């Protein structure tokens, strides 16, 4: 708020002194300053539209879409340069899904201003056709880079990634999903072909960094936080890739006390976060960006 006042005043001063265009002035000021991007995220909401009953043993009165919206609106007032993201398993878990097939979930996420989501295994619970039928209710894109939908009804409808422009920052967001075989009936996912998320992620990140010139790269993952086996998870994905700033995870319903800071393939720090399930929590990650020559050699300071 302070900064905006300041820009307005300097712009006015520009006119007063007759020096030149206000747009030029304000943009030069904006780019000279540090930029601030807020990422808000959920995962595995599983059709939990209402708060938990106040009699619930574990989460009395917590969660609910209407309360989440209040929180999102308050944060956006503080910083309008925000993205709202979801890491999949939007569907299944309450009668809202059984009755309306995901219509209400998508409509509400659109009202809440979600910018993108990825696809979880339960989002196939009414079959790939059921997911396809609900797409018109989503005013945001579903992103997935490692499912090949070529021979399905979703062909051409799911983008691998999307680039957002927020407050002078280019943010590349892409999605990766879990191996469906053995987890979802083939009858549901039909001819969807799963590809290794590590290789795909590296290709996409390269594109986002080199072609799209993104300043921030965010991965929406429905792989799961961590497995003891060699099954791919968010921590393994983080350690086997580079140039990802944040992995927003799902599937394992992991309540992290705070976002995990881990190292990527180049030894640089990556954030991995997940907020349990059922819309009980909202993850918030704030990125402050500066021109590279103003950032000290140590890289970003991370406060979690």
């Amino acid at each position, binding site marked *: 708020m302070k900064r905006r006042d300041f820009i307005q005043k*300097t712009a006015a001063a520009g006119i007063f002194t007759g020096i030149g265009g206000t747009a030029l002035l304000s943009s030069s*000021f904006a*780019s000279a300053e540090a930029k601030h991007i807020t990422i808000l995220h959920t995962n595995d909401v599983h059709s939990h*539209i209402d708060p938990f009953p106040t009699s619930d043993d574990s989460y009395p009165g917590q969660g609910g879409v209407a309360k989440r919206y209040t929180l999102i609106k308050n944060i956006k007032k503080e910083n309008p340069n925000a993205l709202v993201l979801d890491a999949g398993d939007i569907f299944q878990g309450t009668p809202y899904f059984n009755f309306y097939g995901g219509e209400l979930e998508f409509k509400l996420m659109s009202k809440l201003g979600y910018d993108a989501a990825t696809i979880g295994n339960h989002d196939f619970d009414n079959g790939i056709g059921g997911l396809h039928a609900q797409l018109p209710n989503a005013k945001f894109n579903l992103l997935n880079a490692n499912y090949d939908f070529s021979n399905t009804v979703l062909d051409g409808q799911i983008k691998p990634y999307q680039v957002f422009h927020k407050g002078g920052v280019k943010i590349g967001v892409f999605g990766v999903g879990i191996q469906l075989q053995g987890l979802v009936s083939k009858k549901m996912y039909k001819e969807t072909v799963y590809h290794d998320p590590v290789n795909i992620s590296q290709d996409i990140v390269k594109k986002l960094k080199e072609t799209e010139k993104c300043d921030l790269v965010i991965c929406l993952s429905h792989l799961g936080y961590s497995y003891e086996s060699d099954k791919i998870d968010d921590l393994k994905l983080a350690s086997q890739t580079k140039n990802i*700033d944040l992995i927003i995870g799902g599937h394992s319903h992991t309540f992290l006390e705070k976002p995990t800071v881990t190292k990527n393939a180049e030894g640089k720090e990556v954030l991995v976060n997940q907020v349990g399930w059922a819309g009980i929590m909202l993850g918030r990650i704030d990125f402050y960006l500066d021109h590279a020559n103003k950032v000290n050699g140590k890289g970003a300071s*991370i406060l979690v």
Partner: protein
Amino acid sequence: MRNILFILYGIVIFSFSGCKYQNKNTKVPLAVSKIEGKQLSIEKSLTEDEEIKTFVAPYKDRIKDEMNKVLSYTPNTLSKFNGEYNTAIGNMMADALLEITNPVFHQRTGKNIDAVLLNHGGIRSSINRGDITTKTAYNIMPFENEAVVIELKGTQVLKMFEYLSKSEVAHPVAGMQLTLTEDNQIKTGRIQGKKVDLNKSYFIVTNDYLMDGGDHMNFFAIRESETYLDYKLRNVFIDYFKKHDTINPVRDERFIKQ
């Protein structure tokens, strides 16, 4: 005021020089200097957004009306923990599956279902004494699993009996009779009252989760055919409750240990 304007003027000049500086360095990309991360709790005390509440209300009301519809009645509380090898609730579920799906299967294939197998873990709640509502069906079967008829050779049916003899829980069954000896050996195993013919094919109705090896039911993997009935288990139970104004299932002899 005048002073402030002077200061601003100075900043404007500075900004222009800053701009020039940046123009020379347009390739200097943005880099992250600081990251803050935290988990925010959607607390009970947080105010609900009115617009969202209003939007959800009609969807919510319709579900409530539907869920509270009384479909049937049970004089006794039915729990899956009430019985060692067969339970009243499990018998009801298996019988319901046979009764409701056999006409569908018969109409499509001209054949009849021989037996039913579900899993004990799939009984997701008890049924309380009193009215049975739509909600009851959601409670006992919250998942979307659907009925599927699997054609098994007699040899695989014996594998199924073997699985049941070792599982030591009351998996819901119908159309079959299985008696175990004291040391869990199969004493008798019958389908539709007859010994299993190793060369014959049998039609077993179960759900897609178990067909795919859920609960280690690996014997379903070697099958002659599968027929999806496009009938969710939950809807099978709803239709069964609608058909019977009172249900009063009991434990019986279908799966016992001597």
